[in-house]
């Protein structure tokens, strides 16, 4: 479903003790990709060497529980 130009959709519901590395970003940090510790439980992430912030996230208008 995910292609290079498609929006990453939220498929991970897990919120364990770890924040996923590609979502924990303070814009002024100088952290490089190599300093970011991967959550070893996760197998689904795509990590780009030079992309460190997930700035947009699409959800379906039908993707919220509690409506018809």
């Amino acid at each position: 479903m995910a292609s290079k130009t498609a929006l990453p959709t939220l498929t991970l519901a897990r919120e364990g003790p770890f924040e996923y590395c590609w979502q924990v970003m303070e814009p002024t940090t100088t952290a490089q990709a190599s300093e970011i510790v991967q959550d070893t439980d996760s197998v689904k992430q795509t990590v780009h060497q030079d992309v460190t912030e997930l700035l947009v996230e699409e959800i379906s208008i039908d993707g919220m529980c509690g409506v018809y």
Partner: protein
Amino acid sequence: MSGKTLATQLKAGLDAPICLTWEITYACNLQCVHCLSSSGTRDPRELSTDQAKAVLDELRDLQVFYINIGGGEPMIRKDFFEILEHAEANDIGVKFSTNGTYITAENARRLAAMNYLDIQISLDGVDAATNDAVRGKGSYATAIAAMNYLREANFGQFKISVVVTRHNVDQLDAFKALADSYGAQLRITRLRPSGRGADTWDELHPTQQQQRQIYDWLMKHGENVLTGDSFFHLNAFGESLPGLNLCGAGRVVCLIDPIGDVYACPFVIHDQFKAGSLLSDGGFTKVWKESDLFLSLREPESEGACSACGSYDACQGGCMAAKFFTGIPLDGPDPECVTGHGEDLVKSATVSLIPKPSMDHSRPVKINTPRLASSKEAVQRMERV
């Protein structure tokens, strides 16, 4: 900024809903056995046309971009098109759910001419026998006729919405084929024991094995199938299904009912989940932003009895409505918990203590399915009516 996942941020609630359900009438020409809103007769306190337009104006001001209109049968209202046109004029996208009775050839053309409009036809079986057992004699034919009129009027893509039951689980492929034949989008949603659904829950809700079947089908064939994010309790089976996978009630969605009461969602029409009335001072905005109920739903939830189970992160403890109306504590497992933790609780719940819906607009009805007519709950309902 804060590094939180989107789901975490949405659970804390937003200043306005993303989307909401608005049941515009309790009147309905059908008497589906599982009706979540126990609809049938019009409530004399039903909002007037002017009041309905004022609701839309307020939603426009809140920048609610899209609403789901239902009922009862929304097209029964004489001002139905007036309401739709007011929404369109205010840039509010509308999806309405209908049994199709009032989609005539002429109405289909009128609907096809509108902007920002989605239509969802309710259907619970791929054949009349399966469908009509739940929705009433002739309802299958009515729904198909409506779909044909929409196609003839070049409406474009509409949705077919199916409540998954024990008796139609094996028809998922056939539903997909039916939707494909109309160029329509299939939507399958979870049955909750809400409204009249409580009376038929024992007979209709999928078995544990069928739940696995639903999950597997969605993972394999569900790419273009909508679910209203209603199956996140099945995530405990493995990889999470697409969607936000969280209960949106009171956080990003809610229900406005035909008399202007605001509930957490359409599946909990009960005083315990009533946030307030939009007819009070401050209108809908104040209820959404300040009601005690919604503020408490936006607090972080505790795992409660599920804390020992490794699946909680995936399933979130399931659906509030499903627990409430089967007598399970809200911090307990879902009645359909895939690990089976809920089943025993359902069996041991004291029937007399199980909450009943706060209102019942059902009409007296003959249940024409012998099996359902003989269930204990159905007999009790007939006596109440």
